[in-house]
C-alpha cells in the first residue's frame, strides 16, 4: 500500500554558475526511510532546503500529500507537515534544552497570540517536550542551556526539535554527523522506531547508518540523480561506487 507522500518534479536551482539542483525527480513513499546520498557539494542540503521552503527553486514542483507547496514560505512547509533538521546546528543557544523543544511543541500547537498565561508552566508544552528529549537521550540535561552542552548533544537536540513539530515527514540533514558511536546507534534505533508513522528523508555520509536504515536510496551527483533504488542495488552500482563510496569495502 504505497503511494508517494512527497513528489519532486523537474526541480532546478542554481547559484550563479553553480547548478546545485539539476532537473531532480524524486518520489518518497509514505512510511519509508528514504536516504539521499552523494559526494560533498552534490546538492543534498540545497535540495533539503528547497523541500523545507528555505530556498525557492528556480523551476519545478514540490508536491506534498497531493498539494503543490512550491514557493510557500518556510513556516508553511512546516505547517504542512514537513520538518527539517539542520546540517549546521541551528538551535536556540540561549535557551535551555527543554525550552528549545517546548518552543517547537508550541509552534505545532497553533497560533501564539496568547499574552497572559505563563507558557513555561503549561503542561501541554512541557510534558511532550520532555518526552522528545528522552527519545534522543537528553532528558537528564533538559535544564542546561543549549550553548553549554557539547557539539554532539546539540546535534541530538536538533533532532528532538524536528520531532517535536510532529511532522508527517522528517527531513534530516546529516543527523549523525558529530555524534559519537553510541549516540549514533541510539539514533538509528530511534529512527527505526519512528518508521511506523513517519516518513523520513535522510541525508547521511555514515554508510553504516544508511544501509542499516534505508528502504530506498537516491544518489545525487553534481545536482543530478544518478541512481535510485533498493540499498543493495545501490551498493553494487558501479557508478555510485566510483563517485561516492570508493572502490573497496562498503
Amino acid at each position, binding site marked *: 500500500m504505497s503511494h508517494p507522500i512527497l513528489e519532486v518534479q523537474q526541480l532546478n536551482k542554481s547559484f550563479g554558475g553553480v547548478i546545485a539542483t539539476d532537473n531532480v525527480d524524486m518520489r518518497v513513499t509514505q512510511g519509508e526511510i528514504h536516504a539521499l546520498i552523494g559526494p*560533498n*557539494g552534490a*546538492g543534498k542540503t540545497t535540495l533539503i532546503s528547497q523541500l523545507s521552503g528555505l530556498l525557492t527553486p528556480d523551476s519545478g514542483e514540490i508536491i506534498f500529500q497531493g498539494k503543490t507547496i512550491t514557493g510557500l514560505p518556510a513556516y508553511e512547509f512546516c505547517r504542512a507537515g514537513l520538518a527539517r533538521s539542520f546540517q*549546521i546546528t541551528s538551535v536556540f543557544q540561549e535557551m535551555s534544552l527543554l525550552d528549545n523543544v517546548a518552543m517547537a511543541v508550541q509552534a505545532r500547537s497553533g497560533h501564539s497570540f496568547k499574552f497572559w498565561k505563563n507558557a513555561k508552566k503549561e503542561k501541554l508544552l512541557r510534558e511532550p517536550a520532555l518526552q522528545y528529549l528522552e527519545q534522543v537521550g537528553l532528558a537528564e540535561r533538559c535544564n542546561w542551556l543549549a550553548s553549554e552542552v*557539547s*557539539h554532539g548533544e546539540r546535534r*541530538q537536540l536538533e533532532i528532538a526539535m524536528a520531532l517535536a513539530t510532529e511532522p508527517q515527514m522528517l527531513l534530516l540533514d546529516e543527523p549523525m554527523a558529530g555524534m559519537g558511536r553510541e549516540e549514533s546507534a541510539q539514533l538509528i534505533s530511534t529512527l527505526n522506531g519512528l518508521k511506523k508513522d513517519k516518513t523520513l528523508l535522510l541525508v547521511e*555520509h555514515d554508510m553504516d547508518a544508511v544501509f542499516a536504515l534505508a528502504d530506498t536510496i537516491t544518489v545525487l551527483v553534481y545536482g543530478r540523480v544518478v541512481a535510485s533504488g533498493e540499498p543493495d542495488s545501490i551498493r553494487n552500482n558501479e557508478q555510485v561506487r566510483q563517485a561516492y563510496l570508493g572502490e573497496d569495502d562498503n
Partner: protein
Amino acid sequence: MLTVEGLNTFYGSSQALFDMQLEVGRGEVVTLIGRNGMGKTTTIHSIMGIVPPSSGRITYKGVELIGLPSYKIARLGLGLVPEGRQIFPNLTVNENLIATAANTFSKANPWTRERVLELFPALAERLTSMGNLLSGGEQQMLALGRALMTNPDLLLLDDATEGLAPLVRKDIWTSLQALKKAGLSILVVDKNLADLMKLADRHYVIEKGQIVWQGSSQELRDNPSIKDRYLGV
C-alpha cells in the same frame, strides 16, 4: 613533543576536565576518543589557549603554553582543525586559505595553495565562492586545508571528517598517513575507530573529563570491554 599534565578546566563553575594527562611524541599520531560531551574539544581548546585551564601544565617543545595567547601558541607550530569547521564566512575559499597561511619554520616542502587544491580538487572549482556558501563537506575540506597552510608541526584534528563523503574521508586518512610519514605529529579526535586504528600509534579514551584508558591500537583491538564501556561499539 606535547605534554599535558594535571589539567583542570572549568566552564564557569562546572568542571569539564579533571586532572587530564596526555602526551604526543614527535611524528606520532595519537587519538582522543570518547562519547559526546566527555571533554575532547575542551582538551583541544585548553591546549590552544582558547579556553584557559585553571591548573595543570601544558608544554610543547619545552615551552609552557598555559597563559600564552592562542596566536602565540599557534605560531609555535600547532595547527587546529576545529569542531564545526568554523571557516570564515565572509572570505572566499581562496582567501580562507591564504589569509592565515604561514611557514614559520621555513619548511622545505611547505604546504601551498596548489598542494591543498591537489588534495581537495573540489575546492579548486570553488575558489571564488564565499566560505559560507560551500556545502558542509566542502567547508570541512577548507578547514583542513587552512590548517595545513599554516605549516604546523602538530596538527589538532577535532572531528575533522565530520560530514565528509566516504571517498573523501578515505583520501584524508591516506594523506594523514603521508603527513605522518613526513614527520608531522597529529592529535586526532574522531569517531571512525576502524580508520583510526590503522593510522594511530596510541589512543586515549576519555570519560567525563578524565583519561580512563590508554594504549596502542593493538591493545585497543584486543580489549573489547573498553570499546564496549566507553565507546559504545
